[in-house]
């Protein structure tokens, strides 16, 4: 895992523990994780519930500060970068978005421009054009003036991705972007992400529970268990029945699916 010249986003021996109120005790969430993400790659973070996927994403996004270790972006330490500067390179797509107020889709997307503006600066025609472009490339331009809360799950997630695109990032960090979507929307969002990755050369890091989705989209997989990185490498090498058992305590059948064109995972039984 030496950092090659194409390496873009790197986690160096990251550890994080959530503080517990009152007692001073801590719950370790990520322990000593090192991970180098190559520019333009599509990396999947896999692991059981509570393995630290979301925490690792938040650490890489700079939302959480590591207890020890560091994150570098193009060789610069994230801790030394102003938040806004980091946000001009990295955007986060959460699993669900529940705004407390009735923003329109366009308003949500325009908020992606925040790191490019001064705190009291209003967005101008240039920002509006970028927002329109982002809505267009996610197929949501016709929803621009609809209240976000009135949209379907798939439409919402596409608007949230549009909002992340309006940030004009080099890296998208996605936390189970398809988890709350039905099969049709899952494929739709997956196709969108694949296209963005290829056409816009956006580096993707995606936490997911969906092994088949990961197999279809990711060229690299990182496997996490109990906050530790247990495997990291090319999807074809890492996605094996041995590793699925190691991760989830589940016997699974992993095969190449001809018509889908990627590995597929069929869980068979729980072991242990």
């Amino acid at each position, binding site marked *: 895992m030496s950092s090659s010249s194409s390496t873009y986003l790197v986690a160096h021996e990251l550890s994080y523990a959530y503080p517990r109120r009152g007692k001073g005790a801590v719950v370790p969430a990520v322990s000593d994780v090192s991970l180098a993400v190559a520019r333009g790659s599509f990396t999947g973070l896999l692991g059981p519930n509570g393995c630290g996927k979301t925490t690792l994403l938040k650490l890489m996004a700079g939302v959480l500060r590591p207890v020890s270790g560091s994150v570098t972006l193009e060789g610069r330490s994230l801790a030394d970068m102003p938040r806004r500067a980091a946000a001009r390179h990295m955007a986060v797509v959460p699993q669900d978005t529940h705004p*407390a107020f009735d923003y329109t889709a366009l308003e949500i997307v325009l*908020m992606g421009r925040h*790191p490019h503006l001064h*705190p009291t600066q209003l967005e101008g025609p240039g920002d509006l054009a970028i927002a329109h472009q982002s809505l267009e490339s996610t197929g949501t331009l016709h929803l621009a003036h609809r209240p976000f809360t009135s949209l379907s799950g798939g439409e919402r997630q596409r608007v949230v991705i549009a909002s992340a695109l309006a*940030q004009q990032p080099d890296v998208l960090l996605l936390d189970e972007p398809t988890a709350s979507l039905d099969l049709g929307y899952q494929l739709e969002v997956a196709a969108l992400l694949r296209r963005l990755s290829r056409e816009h050369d956006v580096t993707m890091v995606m936490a997911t529970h969906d092994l088949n989705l990961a197999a279809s989209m990711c060229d690299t997989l990182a496997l996490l268990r109990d906050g530790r990185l247990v495997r990291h490498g090319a999807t074809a090498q890492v996605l094996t029945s041995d590793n699925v058992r190691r991760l989830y305590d589940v016997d699974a059948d992993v095969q190449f699916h001809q018509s889908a064109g990627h590995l597929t995972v069929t869980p068979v039984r729980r072991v242990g």
Partner: protein
Amino acid sequence: MDATTHTALAPLAGSGRPIRSRLVLTIAGFGTLAIVTCVVAPLLGSSSINLRRALDASIPFATNVDAQILFIARLPRVLAGALVGAALASAGVVFQALLRNPLATPFTLGVSAGASLGAMLVIILGGTLAVGPWSSVPAASLAGAGLAAAIVYALANGPRRVMSTTVLLLAGVTLNAFFSALIVFVQYLADFAEVARAARWLMGDLDVGGFRPILAALPLVAAAAAIFVRLPAALNLMGVDTDSASARGVDVVATQRWAFFSASLATSGAVALAGPIGFIGIVVPHLVRLLVGSDHRIVLPASALFGATFLVACDLLARTLLAPVEIPVGIVTAIIGGPFFLWLLVREG
């Protein structure tokens, strides 16, 4: 659905228009309304006044009844209404954004209960607390408000940690109940005349008795407003999702602290001046959002201006509805605000 459908519903919203022109339009619209209200309101009342005579400098003030009514009875009341209305409505917007809860009010976190307890103690136990331009009751209510805010802040806050809005809400609600119990206890110990005076204060009233109390409250509200100006963009992002806001470069912890501090300051100043006038802080932001949408950069200034308009108008009703009897404006806002609040609950629940 295209843009025109929604802009037709909300004439000022027009989210198709660039933010700059929406902001200018909104401030011009609500600003005009506020100015007209503040100019007209002093001219109306239980006794009609002759404006030409009131402004006639050749008549000595001591014998000019019209001028006395205008400058002593009505003008301070209108200005106090504008200041308190603007402060409570904008503090409502900021508290709602901070708590990510559109049903929050400036009084949700116990600031007004603290202020009320302070005022009760002075009214009932007596003693003088006058500090600088502040007379005893406002000074005590200010101290109580500060104490309540400090307690809630300490409970919900840790070092460099995002405030827990759940803890904030629970602490606020509990503190409200606890301080209310103390208020009742203090009243139980008092005689009837004191209790009547205390109850009157708790209703909220703009009969502040001159310009001096307004000038005393003004710096607090002005300081809060100076902080408010820098908050709306960050509040917008935090209203979507606090983690996403943080990922976009918003310093969530700092924004929460400034929001809590400034909104508490504005609320304290308003309550010290006029007592706890209810419902402004929730009715006004909601009406404004119906008209202009949810962008805090527009909602915040619009609410401040409309809050001033709304409270001055309510006070005009309070002065004239049962004339010559003047009812405390808090009763009017509660009678309008109570049913409105229920309607909101049903609508949003």
